[in-house]
Structure formats: structure tokens, C-alpha cells
């Protein structure tokens, strides 16, 4: 799972409606996997990210290269796009867990696959 996917996942336990994003990463194993740098794609995806959540998550994983806010010239700032590329598309969480900051539900990540399934009574 790349960090872009982590940025899309939210706790969906019944009645857990506030403060349930982003899921906190714990006990993670991270792998860096090189990927093609595609500025056009990054330019289009920026608007779909929850930026502060993304930055915080990267920091949790030891990547402090992302700016706290998206630069005004983001679209033609190649240096920024490269940093974004690495954090968003090359950082893979292979093992670990995601914990809801509100209800503490644990969603496991195994072999790079996040498991968002809940038991019947949790839905």
C-alpha cells in the first residue's frame, strides 16, 4: 500500500464519525520502491489529497521533506513534485497496523494489503 491509499482510508466502524481520519500507522515496515516520475499525474492528484494528514503520516514514517502547506507554484515546482512523488507513490507500507484515532479500531496491513473489513456487529 502506497501512502496515496492510506490518504483515502477512513474508519467506518458504526457510530465512529468524528476524528476518524487519518488512521494512525503503527509498527510498520516500509519499503521504498522506485516508480516513474510523472509530473502531470502529480499535478492532477494534489487536489484530491488531504494535505495535513498526508504530511503528518509521512513525518510518522520519518520523511520530513514535505512542506506544511502546498506551495503556490506547486504545479511547476519540480523539486516539490519530486518530494511529493517519493512520499506518495514510492513509499509502500508492507506490514503494520492502522489505528483509528477516535475509536482505536485496528485495521491490519499484511503483505502490503490493508484490511478494512469489519465484523458484522461493528458495521
Amino acid at each position, binding site marked *: 500500500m502506497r501512502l496515496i491509499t492510506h490518504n483515502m482510508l477512513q474508519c467506518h466502524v458504526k457510530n465512529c464519525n468524528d476524528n476518524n481520519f487519518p488512521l494512525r500507522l503503527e509498527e510498520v515496515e516500509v519499503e521504498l520502491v522506485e516508480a516513474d516520475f*510523472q509530473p502531470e499525474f502529480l499535478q492532477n492528484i494534489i487536489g484530491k489529497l488531504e494535505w495535513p494528514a498526508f504530511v503528518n503520516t509521512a513525518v510518522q514514517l520519518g520523511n520530513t521533506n514535505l512542506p506544511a502547506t502546498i506551495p503556490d507554484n506547486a504545479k511547476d515546482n519540480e523539486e516539490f513534485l519530486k518530494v511529493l512523488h517519493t512520499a506518495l507513490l514510492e513509499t509502500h507500507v508492507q506490514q503494520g497496523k492502522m489505528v483509528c484515532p477516535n475509536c482505536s479500531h485496528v485495521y491490519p496491513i499484511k*503483505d*502490503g494489503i490493508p*484490511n478494512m473489513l469489519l465484523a458484522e456487529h461493528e458495521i
Partner: protein
Amino acid sequence: MIPTPDLSHLNSKDFRNIYEPAEDTFLLLDALEQDQDELRALHPSICLELGSGSGCVTTFLGSLLKPSLAYMVTTDINPHAAVATVATGKKNGISIDTVETSLVQGLLPRMRHSIDVLCFNPPYAVTPSSEIAGNGIEVSWAGGIDGREVIDATLPFVKELLSEKGIFYLLLVSDNKPDEVVSLLQVEGFNAHICLQRLAGREKQLIVKVTRRT
């Protein structure tokens, strides 16, 4: 020619646990291929497939869009399928992230109105309703009454997921009463029509193409 995904890393033992691509899968690939110019011109940034099984469809879509890059993401309730999807992407040079979940649980509200291409080859066979529960190979086909139960559970999400320019490709068979599904979608305000159909043995399979009305 868009290459049919290489699945040589999966063997008959794997296909005891995950759905092996069949006529329905290939009909969906053909619908995508038929629309390749439109799909490329769309410049999709997020493509989501539900129930990706072996990963054949999303891998094919990723190859079709090349050299353009999109965020390819899929879900499957079957853990073996989730692993296979990622592996198939890797084998064919397409990065896919897969989430083990039912339909889109956990992906909303974040993915609201952001899916540019949505695909689903659902479990569509007529079976007792009880067979839908579970996460093994049987949920690859078990569709309950009229084979419609998982399909009907999915329809309300289409409005949530599709972006302004988004396209949804849904495979159905004649038992699913496709005309009824098309009108349900039209009542919801979508453009929906059957864009491709074919006989597979005695079963008619077809693809419904859905867009927002502009």
C-alpha cells in the same frame, strides 16, 4: 493492440481460491478496448475496480492508459484475490493498490466524486441469498436473488463515487434483468446504456456504461 495481462505467475491452485478470468472478464476488457480513445482523452487520475479478483481488468486498463499514469486502486473481499491483484499489476508493470474490504467500505467519504473510471464484474449468478456471506471463491459468483443482491448493494455508491467526468462499466447477465438495472440508473439521473453484449454458452453477458448526465 493492448496486451492481455500476463497471468503466468498464477496457477491452477491459485484459481481454486480466486476467480479465473473468463468470458465475462474478457467482455469487460473488450468494452474498455472499444472505448480506448475516449478513456485516454479522459486523462483519468483515479481508477477504481470493485472485486478485482486476479487483477486482470485493472492491469489491462492501466496498460491501455500508458504512457499516462493514473492511480489504480481496487477492492476485493477475498484476501487471496487482493494479493493476486497486486501481483498481477507488478508482473505487468502496473502499480495497483488493493484494499481488502466489502465494496467500498473504508474508501468513502474520501473518494467521494473522485473516481474517473469505475469497473465492476460482480458476482452475478442466481444463488440462494445465504451464499453471498463469506470471503472465499464462492463469493466470486454468488449473487443471491436474480443474481442482483451484490449489484443492488453497489448501485447507491455509484453516485457517491463517480467524478463529474467519470465512467462506470458494469457487467451483467440476462438473469440480472439488465433493462431494469439500466432504468434504475437512469432514474438516479445517470446516462446508462448497454454498450456491448455477447452470448457465453446459453448466457447473455453485457456491459452497461454509465456516465453523469451533463
